[in-house]
């Protein structure tokens, strides 16, 4: 053992280097031989050339490098000027627009305007009942076969019911979205974005007006169903509509900016406000008011435009923003309601309310 160690330590560097080189070439030979045997076996077994394509195919699928043509040799806009005839309406449509046109034409695609089709169908109802039946089935897939115009009219009315649970639920869940009921029933409101106010009772009107813009359009005599921040109508219009529909006494509920604000500033009303502010019930007033009372939940709540009950919340909000009350709750209230409309209200009543809170 010692002898061996001595002999090993006696090696000089060149020999060590030579040794290393030898070891290296041994390793490399091993690798090469491995490859050799593999290739030889493949050749003898006949699978060596299997993964190659033959020469003919290589020529067929060679990459094309000409201008105006893609690498497969196909022209890009070959079908642009070709036109097809729609089997439904018998119009000649450009090929690239054919599919979307069919969608709309047949009324079956996701983006097709079912309202339009329904209207058309109802217009032709006396002429062609079977068509309206088809439209109905398309619209309400999970209902049984319906009899036509009767059921359709009923459904339409019930869907337009502003107090239906379906609508109010979807209104609650949609935070931060501008349009309310338009989104809930896109298929139904594409054409008629309004509600006929004559058919609604005062309670319905009130609840409608607290969530929606409600301005009555001159052309259609229908109420606008967009949110209270809808860009098509001004606040004055909204105010006027509320006065018109609900009468003067009821505007304190739905209108932020009239002179009737003084009502809100009485102590009694202030207390009523307080009780409303603290009540987390499901009524029209509470969610937004409770938002103002709770600084922490303020931002999230203030982003619910659906439940943006105009009531006294916006009055207090207006008071806060214009008065610059220094409490943290009021400040966060201010931040949360930065997007609220027109704070034209005098300060003192808001102050009193917030003093109570803090």
């Amino acid at each position, binding site marked *: 053992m010692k002898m061996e160690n001595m002999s*090993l330590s006696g*090696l000089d560097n060149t020999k060590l280097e030579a040794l290393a080189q030898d*070891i*290296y070439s041994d390793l490399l030979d091993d690798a*090469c031989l491995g490859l050799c045997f593999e290739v*030889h076996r493949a050749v003898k077994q006949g699978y060596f050339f299997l993964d190659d394509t033959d020469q003919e195919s290589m020529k067929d699928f060679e990459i094309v490098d000409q201008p105006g043509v893609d690498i497969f040799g196909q022209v890009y806009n070959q079908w642009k000027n070709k036109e097809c005839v729609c089997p439904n309406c018998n119009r000649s449509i450009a090929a690239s627009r054919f599919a979307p046109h069919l969608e709309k034409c047949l009324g079956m695609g996701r983006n097709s305007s079912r309202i339009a089709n329904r209207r058309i169908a109802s217009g032709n109802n006396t002429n062609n009942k079977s068509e309206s039946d088809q439209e109905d089935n398309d619209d309400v897939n999970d209902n049984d076969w319906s009899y036509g115009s009767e059921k359709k009219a009923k459904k339409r009315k019930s869907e337009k019911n502003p107090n239906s649970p379906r609508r109010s639920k979807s209104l609650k869940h949609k935070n931060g979205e501008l349009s309310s009921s338009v989104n809930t029933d896109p298929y139904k409101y594409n054409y008629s974005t309004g509600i006929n106010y004559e058919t609604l009772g005062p309670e319905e009107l009130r609840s409608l007006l607290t969530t929606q813009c409600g301005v009555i359009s001159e052309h259609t005599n229908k109420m606008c169903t967009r949110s209270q921040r809808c860009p098509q109508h001004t606040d004055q219009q909204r105010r006027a509509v509320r006065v018109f529909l609900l009468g003067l006494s009821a505007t304190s509920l739905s209108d932020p900016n009239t002179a009737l604000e003084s009502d809100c500033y009485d102590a009694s009303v202030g207390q009523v406000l307080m009780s409303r502010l603290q009540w987390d019930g499901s009524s029209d007033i509470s969610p937004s008011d409770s938002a103002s009372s709770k600084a922490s939940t303020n931002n999230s709540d203030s982003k619910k435009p659906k439940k943006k009950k105009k009531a006294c919340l916006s009055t207090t909000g207006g008071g806060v923003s214009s008065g610059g009350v220094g409490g943290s709750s009021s400040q966060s209230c201010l931040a949360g309601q930065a997007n609220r409309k027109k704070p034209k209200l005098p300060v003192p009543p808001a102050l009193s309310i917030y003093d109570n809170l803090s």
Partner: protein
Amino acid sequence: MRATINQKLTEMGERERLKELLRAKLTECGWRDQLKAYCKDVIKEKGLEHVTVEDLVVEITAKGRVLVPDSLKKELLQRIRAFLAQHAT
């Protein structure tokens, strides 16, 4: 003396490790595919039926040594030297 070292190399498993390392690196750097393509040429030249192992071995080892990238060669030599330095003295 060489036998001793070789024995040590094998016993400690270092030989296997080095072998695997070399194989992996050669595949990674494309050496294997290059060499295989060269094989194809040789075989087409010699004729598919008449290729023998010896032919291939000769051609491949010769070409293979040349094709190994320098960095890989240096790395491997370094490892071997390190091993020798550690265990030969």
